[in-house]
């Protein structure tokens, strides 16, 4: 490949603002024909925004785009498709009650009549050509996440995409599916398709990409051939300093012999009335972090809700420090010493209320004097926590105006300040930047040292591996196996998460 080749895509001086936040500040980006190009950066660095502009989902405030050397105006995905650009977004753009074929041909066919039989054959043929195995008649809602991703890729290719953008494609996959995806990408590269691979995972970038562009805070901080850089170089470019990582005091085992949280043969149903937890048993001892690994939707949400007391169990027992709180409700669970940091932080705060109110929300009775809320105490409490947890907010700010990291700190402060004996925490660092992530993880380890029993539910395997003393793999509502952190590898976890027994 020569460098004076006409780039498949050339973006120059791209600016994009959302309100007061600048997501892209004068970004330049080049994509060469037939390469896999990593767009690397932390959450919020502006990677997705840049690519959404290229795909016409956002409009740039300023800047130009050229496709194969010719200037291109891209106002909508329709325009992007016409220029041979396809994108697989993080949240799949699929119509779930429809079939694979209907989804693939959607919007492609300008004829009046819909010929599903012929379309099915075309879709099958297109899938075979790039080695994607998929049943064209299956309903999308019955497909696994990995299969849905294949439908999305197929959709783009069916529209003759020569440029394929993948936004964090591996975030939802188990390791074996990642290998499959990489095989597909290599095959596409052979066919001359250019791939943009948005990621913040260094090892994947090193493994699959030819070139890499690193973004930080809305700007490009560097671009290079992947083979000429080391992961450490990239990490430094990404965060602007060497990554530290949480130092887990592994040497000191804080675990005490007695179990603080016990689940004995617990079963529960999900919102659709289907079994979500099946005869699930586990123990978390005081002073340990038990990580729960699994592909999303295998009962993690219901597991957390059962312990928090907001979802009834259909059989089994739930004990906190020996006290039976089975189906006792959230108040009793809290009184027994359960602290909860739920997966959707927007759902665990009241957006329009102030930081101070949100900090006291779970124990308003303690801030009440003769039936009235004692605002002074509320405020003092908030000021103390804001200082202690380094939250960038004032007590009176409506909590919805806070960034994700600061909001999570508020929730963390609300829970940890009470030194709960059991902490149920789900996806604690999802969507947070590196600094906030490190802070949150550090606080969890600190609580472990203080003797809390922590159940850590996360889809981020790196997080699980970094923090846990033991790791439980959940699959279809059952704990498949519990591994000691020392013996757990990515591969072993991946196999268990995919439902394979060792």
């Amino acid at each position: 490949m020569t460098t004076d080749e006409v780039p498949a895509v050339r973006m120059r001086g791209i600016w994009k603002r959302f309100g007061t936040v600048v997501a892209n500040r004068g970004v330049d980006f080049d994509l060469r024909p037939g390469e896999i190009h990593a767009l690397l950066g932390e959450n919020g660095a502006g990677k997705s925004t840049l690519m959404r502009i290229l795909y016409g989902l956002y409009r740039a405030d300023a800047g130009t785009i050229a496709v194969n050397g010719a200037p291109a105006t891209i106002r909508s995905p329709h325009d992007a498709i016409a220029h041979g650009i396809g994108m697989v977004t993080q949240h799949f753009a699929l119509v779930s009650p429809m079939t694979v074929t209907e989804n693939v041909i959607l919007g492609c066919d300008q004829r009046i009549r819909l010929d599903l039989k012929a379309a099915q054959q075309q879709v099958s043929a297109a899938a075979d050509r790039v080695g994607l195995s998929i049943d064209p008649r299956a309903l999308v809602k019955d497909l696994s996440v990995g299969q849905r991703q294949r439908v999305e890729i197929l959709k783009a290719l069916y529209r003759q995409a020569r440029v394929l953008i993948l936004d964090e494609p591996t975030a939802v996959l188990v390791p074996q599916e990642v290998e499959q995806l990489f095989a597909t990408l290599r095959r596409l590269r052979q066919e001359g398709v250019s791939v943009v691979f948005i990621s913040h995972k260094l090892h994947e970038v090193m493994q699959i990409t030819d070139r890499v562009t690193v973004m930080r805070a809305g700007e490009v901080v560097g671009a290079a051939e992947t083979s000429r850089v080391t992961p450490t170089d990239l990490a430094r470019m990404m965060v602007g300093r060497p990554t530290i990582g949480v130092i887990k005091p592994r040497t000191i085992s804080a675990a005490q012999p007695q179990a603080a949280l016990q689940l004995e043969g617990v079963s529960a149903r999900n919102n659709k009335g289907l079994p979500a937890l099946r005869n699930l048993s586990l123990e978390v001892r005081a002073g340990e972090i038990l990580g729960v690994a699994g592909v999303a939707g295998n009962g993690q949400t219901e597991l957390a809700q059962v312990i928090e007391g907001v979802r009834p169990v259909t059989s089994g027992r739930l004990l906190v420090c020996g006290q039976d709180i089975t189906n006792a409700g959230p108040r009793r669970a809290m009184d027994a010493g359960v602290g909860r940091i739920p997966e959707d932080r927007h759902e665990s705060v009241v957006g329009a209320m102030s930081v101070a109110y949100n900090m006291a929300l779970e124990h308003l009775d303690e801030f009440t004097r003769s039936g009235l809320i004692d605002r002074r105490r509320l405020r003092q409490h908030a000021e103390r926590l804001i200082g202690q947890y380094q939250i960038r907010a004032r007590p009176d700010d409506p909590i919805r105006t806070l960034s994700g990291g600061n909001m999570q700190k508020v929730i963390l402060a609300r829970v940890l300040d009470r030194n709960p004996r059991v902490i149920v925490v789900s996806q604690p660092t999802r969507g947070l930047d590196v600094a906030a992530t490190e802070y949150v993880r550090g606080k969890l380890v600190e609580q472990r040292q203080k003797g809390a029993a922590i159940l850590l539910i996360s889809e981020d395997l790196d997080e699980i591996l970094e923090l846990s003393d033991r790791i439980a793999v959940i699959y279809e509502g059952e704990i498949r196996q519990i591994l000691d952190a020392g013996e757990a590898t990515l591969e072993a976890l991946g196999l268990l998460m995919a439902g394979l027994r060792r």
Partner: protein
Amino acid sequence: MSEASLLAFLVGLLAATLRVATPLLYATIGEVYSERSGVLNLGIEGVMFLGAFVGFAAAAQAEAAGWGAYLWVGLVAAMISGLLMALLMALLSVTLGLNQHVAGLGITLLCTGLAMFGFRLVFGERPVLPRISPFSQLNPFPGTPILDPLLNQYLLTYLAFLVLVPASVWVLYHSNFGLQLRAVGENPEAADAAGINVFRIRYAALAISGVLMALGGAFLSLAQLGAFSPGIVAGRGWVCIALVIFARWDPLRAMFGALLFGGMFALQLRLQTQGFQLPYEVLLALPYLVTILALAVAGRHAPYPGAYLKPYRRE
């Protein structure tokens, strides 16, 4: 009742059922198009009322001017009025993304007011309601024994059951427009990403719905009654909203829903004339009660379109 008279009673009941179901079928299928695209069109009651008025007023003027095709003039005028109101609904709920409940009820209030005002303007104060000679019923197979009354129907009734229903099934499930319409109603983000213009599809769906609703209303004034009165629609639009859910957004099931309601309405009319020992108010309420019952049974696990009531916004 003898066997022969029972048979005659049933045939007569069925014939009346088809007549009563006709306006419901137009409006219900209209609502199916709009809801399948993700927009609840509560303008339905008002647009039916406006269609009934505009159709009648235009036909009356054309009849007075001595035009032979005055009824068709009325029908076309009604359809245009429905189209305009649908475009207004689209502007409010699709382009501006306003709350669909509020926009739809607003359209209904506007249409009701416009029609009442228009009626005063065109016909003034009169001691007797103005009348036109309405569409006559026609029978493609005259002289058929027993079934004769059943086959004796309005052209608009034949069109509704034999053309509109199959055509709508074809459009929704066997055309690319239908695929796009359903996709827009289920997941507009996905449709947009697939290069479909979500706004254009929703405008088209609402336009179809407005025209069909106005046709349903015009059927009442131009065929069934040959007159216009303030109580002409009498909540039929609201019944259609329920029928759409009962029909699970499917044109064929909408036909059965319309027949069910039509049947109840025809039955209570006949029971009234047979001197049935029940207060007539109870009989009048019967079709509405059956609608609620049917809705409670069939609508509990109704598969609402994924984007029902959600305005679409990019960014």
